[in-house]
């Protein structure tokens, strides 16, 4: 007896696939994102082939009096962080002179992660909820804040970079002239920079001022460098505000691994 081969009609096939697509669309994002992460997890070796190619192709300079651009950036970031730390400690010493301050236990943990895939304004890293990663945690690259955790699965996560418009962080703009900080909110421009929004023009802000991620309970305990102001002009649409552009401290192509700031909570 001949076997009857099941072959649905073209219309049945089309409608079935369409319904499958609608089901996929209706399943919550935190469930379907596991598929995306699984794909990256399986093929992570192949996906990383060719990364940082431009950086590693740079010829090495043997002169003892000069360093590579990447090394310069790394040292500059370290210097900026130290400067912020010194400034913060000075302020604390001033306060300690008046009142005894009970400094909370830093208890800050860093979870190191490798970048398994690079997308536009986004990194996929090989750490997840199993390593206590949660949405919103800050991510460091070359010691600068480069973004925050967006989606988390058990062993893989996505990081929205500060150049992404989906990433909004509270920042402090250092003002060495008045020995103070101005507060603001940074948002990516979806290119290679970011903007600081709604800063009143009454604040004396100039090009070159450093921008730090503001401390946030449970997320970040001391300011961390994000970048520096590359352009500060009067906002064309609202002349009482500044239009501030920020150049991030990192070069995304140079970063091979990152560290996620995980504040450890004490067990009850």
């Amino acid at each position: 007896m001949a076997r009857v081969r099941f072959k649905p009609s073209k219309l049945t096939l089309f409608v079935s696939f369409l319904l499958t697509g609608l089901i996929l669309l209706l399943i919550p994002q935190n469930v379907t994102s596991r598929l995306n992460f699984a794909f990256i997890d399986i093929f992570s070796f192949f996906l990383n082939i060719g990364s940082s190619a431009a950086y590693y192709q740079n010829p090495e300079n043997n002169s003892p009096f000069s360093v590579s651009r990447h090394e310069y950036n790394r040292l500059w970031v370290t210097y900026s962080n130290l400067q912020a730390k010194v400034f913060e400690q000075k302020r604390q010493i001033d306060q300690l002179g008046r009142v005894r301050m009970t400094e909370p236990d830093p208890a800050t943990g860093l979870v190191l992660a490798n970048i398994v895939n690079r997308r536009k304004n986004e990194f996929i890293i090989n750490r997840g909820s199993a390593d206590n990663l949660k949405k919103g945690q800050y991510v460091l690259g070359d010691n600068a804040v480069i973004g925050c955790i967006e989606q988390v699965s058990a062993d893989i996560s996505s990081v929205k970079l500060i150049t992404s418009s989906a990433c909004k962080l509270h920042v402090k703009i250092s003002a060495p002239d008045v020995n103070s900080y101005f507060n603001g909110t940074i948002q990516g421009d979806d290119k290679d920079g970011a903007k600081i929004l709604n800063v009143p023009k009454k604040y004396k802000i100039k090009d070159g001022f450093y921008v730090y991620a503001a401390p946030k309970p449970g997320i970040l305990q001391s300011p961390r460098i994000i970048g520096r102001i590359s352009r500060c002009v009067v906002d064309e649409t609202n002349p009482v505000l500044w239009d501030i552009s920020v150049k991030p401290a990192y070069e995304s192509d140079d970063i091979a691994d990152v560290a996620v700031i995980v504040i450890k909570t004490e067990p009850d």
Partner: protein
Amino acid sequence: MRWWRFTFLIILVAVLQTSAAMNLLSLTDLRIKPDILLILLVYFAVYCDSYDAVIISFALGFAADITGAVMGPHFISYGIIGTAVAHIRKIILLKTTRQQALTIFITGILTEAVALVLAGLKAPGLAKTGVFEVVAVATYSAILWFLIKWLVGAAGKWLGVGVHRFGTRIDER
């Protein structure tokens, strides 16, 4: 159509599309890259019979979703528009490379527009592609078609497609 070979090809292209190696082809600080899955969508819609084109379109849409951030939008948009192209080519032959490049350009804009709307419904924070970027990717993919047509054609022949629909199909020889 040799479906096992097609599965291998689609995985290969999905990995290539997502890999850092594609950054070598990226342009401007927006990192505009060609969409190889889009090129394949148009190629198979033009050269396969419409039944296979339906399956292939949805399969390529699934690959586009799994390499992106949201599951579903590309599955639907590639499926609908790929099927539509497969039917349109019954009226317009789309034989010349220029016509195919134009089809890639239009299909690229339509698929991304539909996918963006659907992605916005599911995960608004992840649907951030701008109009310029959509047009630029479609243009880049259409231009790239002139350069890689022979390669895609060779892959198509390996899969058992690529013979013009008025000619003899490979499995009928």
